[in-house]
């Protein structure tokens, strides 16, 4: 199924570049899903595809249809806004659920409260005296 729209050369270069860039970034993010060893590390990886990968492929789609129909076609921006807004919400809900489950079952790999608190203590604060 090798076919493509008949675009002028500048639009073809831009569309090809953005599509390939977006697909590569999405694949890099998905490979992080395979390679990272902990759920709390893994949850960061696919966001690469949902922000930059989605934006690149939809920008390519906007350029392609604007050139084909010789008028500005920007309805793809709906998907960009929607996906960029909803990904942090879903992943925060998911991590909160995972943290609740891990703490209730006392799994070893949970980031503990003391480790998080120590990460926020700076040196210039007065010590406990």
């Amino acid at each position, binding site marked *: 199924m090798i076919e493509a729209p008949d675009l002028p050369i500048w639009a073809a270069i831009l569309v090809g570049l953005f599509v390939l860039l977006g697909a590569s970034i*999405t694949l890099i993010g998905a490979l992080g899903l395979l390679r990272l060893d902990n759920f709390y590390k893994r949850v960061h990886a696919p966001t690469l595809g949902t922000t930059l990968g989605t934006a690149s492929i939809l920008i390519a789609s906007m350029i392609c249809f604007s050139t084909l129909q010789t008028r500005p076609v920007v309805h793809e921006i709906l998907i960009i806004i929607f*996906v960029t807004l909803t990904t942090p*919400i879903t992943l925060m809900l998911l991590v909160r659920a995972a943290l609740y489950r891990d703490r209730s079952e006392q799994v070893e790999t949970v980031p503990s409260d003391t480790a998080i608190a120590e990460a926020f203590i700076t040196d210039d604060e007065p010590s406990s005296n």
Partner: protein
Amino acid sequence: MSTFILALVITGAQVLLALAMGCGAFRILRGPRAQDRVLGMDSLYIGGMLLLITYGIQTGRTLYFEGALIIALLGFAGTVALAKFLMRGEVVE
């Protein structure tokens, strides 16, 4: 000539997106716990949506845009419902 190269580039991008969906499917099948499987399903939804948009670029029809928008909406709703189920044990309280 430029059309042929563009067709090759778009097909290559579709192969890359299919590999990304394969990574999501691996996480669904092999995830150690339920939250890993939900994360893999979210990644699979995003890959499918992007694959549909590249089909839209390839054929030059705006028909595929509506499908991609619906996949984005339902992926969000599904992941939120599953996260809420993992948290509480029920979806609607």
